[in-house]
């Protein structure tokens, strides 16, 4: 039986038509992947399913009954739960409190039953993260993005409880490492076998192939195609997503084969050194990191989640305190960081695209708003940011397009050294290829780049050299040609 | 009721209005919520009916807010009333707006507190130093010229109360047997702040051990606050307490002996004379530069005197229509 049926849903925000008559059927006991470019309307559709937004037109049913949730509480009563794309934990509450939020076990007069809460929460946590992986009394705000993501998945499971029919996962693995992601998919399979319908929004076509039973592609707010990902060739799916061939760019599909990867033109010993780290140690991580970065090269940093990659980048930039060691910057035009936490510290969500791109500590004393806007418009077309114009609030953009805005800002600054933390997180295949090509191109123009990514294939195909970070200790770097994904994983996990 | 409308009964009667319309006088007190100002208001209304003029009664929005009063005066000047009757919150700061009024040919009568300069027509008020001295002499008499005395002041920079405090302190300091143990605490604008201050002050001076024999407070809110503090800590009747101004509660306390004396001004008369003087001036009569409205000491004994009674309980209802 169909667990969730969505028919002819339309939704617009002001002048922007986001969904233009979407139909979607999800069966019980299946994992249904929803694919599409950045800004295609995937998250909006899911938010409507959860009652966070309300469709302008169209109907839905759950388990055959009409379904029109006014709010997430209605959705939960009907057995629909979701892990949204952006992080939504209460930073001041601890892990347990976050997981049982809204479903707190309680006695008469609403008095909390703490023991029951701990039991419910630890059970849910154990399912997604394994025993003891996450400290249950830590405040959510103090945890890494990956851990927060796991807590959120646990929360959705706990909230659904026994009566859950539909679980919506909006890019659940975007900030997870491989082992956490694997465990999650194992979990998803078990849930599916117990009769649950799972809607999976993702940009990882590999995951779709391995874990989904069916897929539906959205483009410009309309359904463009659907089928069985195990039989449909990846090229076809990509074509449905983009409406054109993915020729010149390397998509995820062939990047995995290492095909168009960049090799062997590493700058010679004579290239100018831009950055040198001498046994740098931060407050907790990194513990001893030494590296040199030369003009024109991309240095990859691999590591498991929590190994301290983000801290390393922050220490280099001076955002975190360096306890010992030395960061020697010889780059004349300085360094810039692309944050992995774009909502938290990457972007001013309340302000326009143009203003975000123009944000800089440098520049002339006086600024001209119309120049800023024109500049913004130029970057929007350069990186094909899907938006209504340079004046649109960044907070109203889809996740992937927000990421592009962040990149545009770095490019505009014309730094010599770019520290990029998970640059392809949450962006679609075409944009992903575009971003990686862009990095290559920038290196070609003489920039030095440090690339942190959880996508090992990305590292192998894009970098000149790769170093591995293991619990805060950075290994010596080796040419990318000497690595492949298995070797990196082995090194990082050993 | 609406205290701001032209006083009832002034419309349609008589035809004495000048050719350019009826005379409209703005009366600007320092505040509106103390009973003192209610009586002034009543007196002003009485005068307005007698001499057939319209009055507008308008205090600063916040009680005792200097800037607000300056703004009210200049707004009336801009509006172009016939005359302004003003109780200035400061003797210098109101000089400029009053000068402005004079330039706009709007005469000003000052009442209650003085104003520097001579742009105003007349000054109608109590002599506050003398009134304070009245209180000081009474306390000395009650204490037989010896003991410890406490003053709870009203507010920083308020001239009329500072004059009363000064008059009181002058009188007390003239007696070598009397010692002022505290005179640097201010009760602030409201009863509640005066009460909290008074309570803490009594404790700090160990009043319960008999270390304080006499108390003076210079206006209604400090007097009432101090009265409450004495009552709440069971120290009423244990010391001599002379306050200033009157209200039902204070008169009740006087009768019960919790207050040993109240210096009262004659606010009704003040309001009456101020408006009358202004009307006289506007109609071309000659008016005195200084008009004293008098102050007297009220005690339990003279409370029933008809003269005192009239000052203490003017018939507000009749004039304000409440």
């Amino acid at each position, binding site marked *: 039986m169909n667990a969730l049926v969505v028919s002819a849903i339309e939704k617009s925000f002001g002048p922007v038509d986001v969904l233009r008559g979407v139909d979607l059927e999800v069966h019980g006991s299946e994992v249904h992947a929803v694919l599409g470019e950045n800004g295609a309307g995937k998250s909006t559709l899911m938010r409507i399913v959860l009652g966070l937004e309300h469709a302008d037109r169209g109907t839905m049913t759950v388990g055959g009954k009409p379904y029109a949730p006014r709010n997430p509480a209605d959705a939960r009563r009907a057995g629909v739960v979701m892990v949204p794309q952006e992080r939504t*934990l*209460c930073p001041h*509450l601890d892990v347990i*409190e976050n997981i049982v939020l809204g479903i707190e076990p309680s006695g008469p007069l609403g008095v909390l039953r703490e023991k029951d809460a701990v039991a419910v929460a630890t059970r849910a946590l154990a399912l997604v993260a394994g025993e003891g992986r996450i400290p249950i009394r830590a405040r959510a705000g103090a945890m890494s993005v990956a851990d927060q993501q796991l807590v959120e998945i646990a929360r959705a499971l706990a909230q659904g409880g026994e009566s859950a029919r539909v679980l919506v996962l909006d890019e659940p693995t975007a900030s997870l490492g491989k082992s956490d992601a694997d465990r999650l998919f194992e979990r998803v399979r078990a849930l599916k076998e117990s009769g649950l319908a799972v809607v999976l929004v993702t940009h990882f076509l590999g995951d779709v192939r391995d874990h989904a039973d069916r897929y539906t592609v959205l483009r410009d707010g309309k359904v463009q195609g659907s089928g069985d990902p195990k039989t449909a060739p990846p090229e076809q799916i990509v074509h449905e997503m983009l409406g054109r061939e993915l020729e010149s760019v390397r998509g995820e599909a062939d990047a995995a084969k290492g095909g168009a990867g960049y090799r062997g033109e590493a700058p010679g010993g004579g290239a100018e050194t831009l950055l040198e780290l001498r046994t740098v140690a931060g407050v907790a991580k990194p513990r001893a990191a030494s590296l040199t970065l030369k003009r024109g090269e991309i240095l990859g940093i691999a590591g498991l989640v929590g190994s301290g990659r983000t801290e390393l980048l922050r220490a280099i930039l001076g955002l975190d305190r360096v306890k010992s060691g030395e960061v020697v910057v010889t780059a004349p035009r300085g360094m810039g960081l692309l944050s992995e936490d774009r909502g938290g510290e990457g972007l001013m969500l309340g302000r326009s695209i143009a203003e975000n791109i123009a944000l800089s500590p440098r520049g002339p004393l006086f600024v001209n708003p119309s120049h800023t806007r024109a500049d913004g418009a130029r970057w929007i077309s350069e990186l094909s940011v899907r938006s209504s114009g340079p004046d649109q609030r960044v907070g109203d953009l889809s996740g992937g397009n927000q990421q592009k805005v962040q990149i545009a800002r770095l490019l505009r600054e014309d730094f010599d050294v770019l520290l990029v933390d998970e640059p392809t997180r949450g962006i679609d295949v075409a944009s992903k290829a575009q971003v990686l090509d862009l990095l290559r191109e920038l290196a070609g123009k003489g920039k030095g780049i440090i690339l942190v990514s959880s996508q090992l294939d990305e590292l192998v195909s894009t970098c000149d050299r790769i170093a591995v970070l293991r619990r805060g200790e950075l290994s010596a770097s080796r040419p990318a040609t000497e690595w492949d994904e298995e070797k990196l994983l082995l090194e990082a996990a050993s | 009721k609406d205290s701001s409308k032209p006083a009832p009964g002034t419309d349609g009667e008589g035809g004495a209005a000048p050719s350019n319309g009826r005379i409209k006088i703005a009366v600007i007190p320092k505040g509106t919520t103390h009973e003192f100002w209610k009586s002034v208001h009543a007196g002003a209304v009485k005068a307005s009916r007698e001499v057939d003029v319209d009055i507008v009664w308008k205090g600063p929005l916040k009680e005792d807010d200097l800037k607000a009063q300056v703004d009210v005066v200049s707004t009336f000047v801009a509006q172009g009333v016939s005359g302004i009757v003003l109780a200035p919150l400061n003797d210098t700061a109101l000089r400029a707006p009053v000068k402005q009024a004079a330039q706009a040919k709007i005469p000003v009568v000052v009442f209650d507190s003085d104003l520097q300069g001579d742009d105003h027509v007349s000054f109608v008020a109590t002599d506050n130093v003398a009134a304070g001295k009245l209180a000081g002499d009474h306390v000395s008499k009650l204490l037989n010229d010896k003991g410890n005395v406490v003053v709870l002041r009203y507010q920083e920079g308020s001239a009329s109360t500072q004059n009363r405090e000064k008059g009181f302190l002058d009188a007390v300091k003239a007696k070598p047997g009397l010692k002022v143990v505290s005179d640097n*605490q201010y009760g602030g604008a409201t009863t509640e702040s005066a009460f909290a201050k008074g309570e803490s002050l009594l404790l700090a001076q160990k009043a319960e051990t008999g270390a304080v024999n006499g108390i003076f407070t210079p206006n209604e809110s400090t007097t009432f606050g101090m009265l409450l503090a004495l009552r709440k800590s069971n120290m009423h009747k244990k010391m001599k307490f002379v306050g200033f101004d009157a209200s039902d509660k204070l008169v009740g306390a006087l009768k019960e002996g919790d207050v040993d004396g109240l210096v009262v001004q004659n606010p009704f008369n003040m309001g009456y004379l101020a408006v009358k003087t202004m009307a006289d001036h506007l109609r071309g009569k000659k008016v005195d530069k200084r008009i004293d409205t008098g102050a007297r000491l009220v005690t339990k004994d003279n409370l029933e005197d008809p003269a005192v009674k009239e000052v203490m309980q003017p018939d507000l209802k009749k004039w304000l229509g409440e």
Partner: protein
Amino acid sequence: MSALASLRTMRRPAWLGPFVALLVVYTIFAIITPEHSFLRSQIFLTMARQSVVLAICALGMTLVIVTGGIDLSTGSLVALTTVVVAKMLKGGSSPVVAVATAVAVATAVGAFVGVCVGRFRLMPFVVTLGTMAVLRGSAIGLASEQKIDCDPRGLDHLLEASLSAPGIWIALALAALVAIVLGYTRFGRHVFAVGSNEAAARLCGIDAGRVKILVYAISSLLAGIAGVMEFSTLTVGDPTDSVGLELDVIAAVVIGGAPLAGGEGSVLGSVFGALLIIVIRTGAVHMGMPSWVQYIVTGVIIFVAVAVDSARRRRTRS
């Protein structure tokens, strides 16, 4: 090892800072007052009595601030309550009816503010700024621009500087009640969640609007009770009473460790904050400091309390 780790991650109670500040300030005053008169039990009781209004208001304000809101109408509401009580008593109502009416009026005002903030998503600062003016005006108008004089009919004994006066015990009981609600009930948890991340709370099915309506209603109910206590002290209805009280109340809550951004706060901290303010005030009068020195001392102590608290937090975090 794990025990040690759990010790380190254990949260330092939020009220510790204000409690230490209170102790230190009290001790300093006790030492420097002549003959250590600051230690007399009567002083203690008087300070307890003086704290009652501030502390009861701070209980409600704690809830409001934890949701990330603010309430500027507290002072006006207290004044209005004294006026309503006095007016009813004067009109011949029994004390019970007068008090019940006044508290009901206050609660209704709070519910209205809550609806504006919770349902119509108006900024609490502005809504309560407007409410503050409207309530002050209503109080003055209701009292015909005068203090309302009436027979307090026993209400004046509600709050006195004596252990037998019910006021102090009522305040303590209310503090315990609010602390329990905030710390041990679903509603309390939702209050924190709404203040911490409203979107997350909504996602989890919490009706954030309802939580806010309740919070403002409770807060105003408490302000109403505080107003009754204020009436008990004044024995008149005073429409000009408690101007600026809200700033003291907010200061108490903030000193008590609740940032205005919401998501954090503790009832105990706020109560200590209120006590600290009263101790400073009483101590200053006690020392015979001129009023301007009192202002400066109060300012500096607010300052130091928060600076020290913030330094401690930073140390704990890193």
